[in-house]
């Protein structure tokens, strides 16, 4: 019974996570969409865990081991590359707050003297 409920629990988690995804993401401004895409891209590299879990089990034949090493390598590329590249992109935004005189809000640009 407990085991059977695992599936429903997992489905509930799935649905809730979907809503969280919608809520969290819908607030991101246009300008950050590329880094966002890259950042979420890095997060789905979490499939790496699947590779780690299965390779950690007994009874993998040689071919399975090869497949899993490739899968782990792929997952690692996805995670490490994804986070690094996102970081590089975002660092460029970070250098930008050097015009503090211009203040955050620049409502309409019709303020020419």
């Amino acid at each position, binding site marked *: 019974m407990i085991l059977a409920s695992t599936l429903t629990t997992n489905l509930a988690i799935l649905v809730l996570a979907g809503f969280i995804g919608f809520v969290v993401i819908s607030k991101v401004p*246009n*300008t950050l969409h590329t880094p966002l*895409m890259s950042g979420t891209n890095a*997060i*789905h590299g979490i499939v790496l865990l699947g590779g780690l879990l299965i390779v*950690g089990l007994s009874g993998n034949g040689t071919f*399975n081991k090869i497949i*899993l090493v490739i899968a782990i390598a792929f997952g690692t590329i996805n995670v490490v590359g994804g986070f690094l590249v996102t970081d590089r992109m*975002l660092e460029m935004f970070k250098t*930008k707050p050097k015009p503090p005189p211009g203040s955050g809000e620049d409502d309409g640009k019709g303020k020419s003297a």
Partner: protein
Amino acid sequence: MSAVPLATSFLQDQSFLDVLYIIAFGLFIQGLRGLSGPTTAVRGNRIAAVGMTIAVIATLLNVNEGNWGLIVLGVALGTAVGVPAARQVKMTAMPQMVALFNGVGGGAVFLIAWAEFRRDGSTYGSHTVNLGGPLGGLSAHVGGVSTYVAAFSVFAAIVGSVSFWGSNIAFGKLQEILPGRPISLGSAQQIVNLVLLILALAAGVDLVAGAHSELVFIGMLVCAALLGNAVVLPIGGADMPVVISMLNAFTGLSAAATGIALDNTALIVAGMIVGASGSILTNLMAVAMNRSIPSIIAGGFGGGGAVEGASGAGEHAGTVRSTSAADAAIQLAYANRVVIVPGYGMAVAQAQHAVHELTKALEKRQVEVSYAIHPVAGRMPGHMNVLLAEADVPYDQLKEMDDANPEFARTDVSLVIGANDVTNPAAKNTPSSPIYGMPILEVADSKSVIVIKRSMNPGFAGIENELYYDPKTTMLFGDAKSAVSEITAELANI
């Protein structure tokens, strides 16, 4: 199974693992929230990376078998490829880099599903077998559960494979290894796609129902692979960002499915969040380009449309006025207000620094300069902002389309640098144009327009631009970087 003695250690306690996973996905959510603002984004990304590190460590604590050599090998290989790629990629090549990283993620998903099938496929469709270790593979096997597990695993395999191959094609197109133009089978395309999809699904159903045949599994992977190719090949370069975003969402969903198959909460949550966010982003991009997602997937955009557009353009192939850097400099120097419209052409020419120099020179002359950024300028939403941020252009000079458009009417000179389709008035005036209805930057409203462009070749979408024939428009032909530098040099002489 083995390593039972260690299972008593609290580090390997299932609840402890679950807590670590909960912390990990809490950090993912917090990290993504951080990504919602330019000032918190860097931290947000790092928070998510910390979450990932925790999830990986938690998982490694529970690896019981002595397969550490394989794990180290896989991680080392991945790091050796991923780190230099991420460090060295040019900002202009970012879209294809994302495509590639997304592709390998999808690749990992289908390989994992395959390995899983090779281990446990003989139990697919049966309802009583119990196997797997403490976390192991298919841990819930009572009642009909293993059927669901098999179904999610098969889903992950199909979607992962589609994502892997589709992303690779997207990479090839953006990297210009493959032609950007749509490659399709014409009207047969959709039937072929449908047949491939049905075949992949049929194989999947067969497996879930208990066909213990690896041949069927491989056949399913092959059909999914062909489908991934067949879906993306007919899509023109201009739609590629939408496709990458969609495939990003797909990979997320397939990761979530893997999570259900492996009963792994961290995978479910992280995968699903990516699936949801990727879907939103895909939709936003499609809206910005006035394209519907079904019609993008149905394929062939740019193919038929380009022919139509080209023949339409034949009519007004009227006069194009070209100008010189010196004339352009004079025009700009005596303007009160200049709006720069950057496009992908600026990025390829690496002209963003030169453009920033020009801006500074103009500002010294009391010219008011701002940048109008189309939502899909560059090749992905926000791509242009990244490129301009790289060149230290102040954030508050960048105007988004809705803010920029009303301002064109009181703009003296619009300087269009390597942008094309996003300024094309055909999107407003020509119902037969394939981009009709796409929101554009209304450059044609300004008093005069200078377009810097390499040649009269049509843009990424393959459509002629009426703007170039407008009497207000002058063309400055040349490489964006050298043209802009020349203008800056001429400014100094005025």
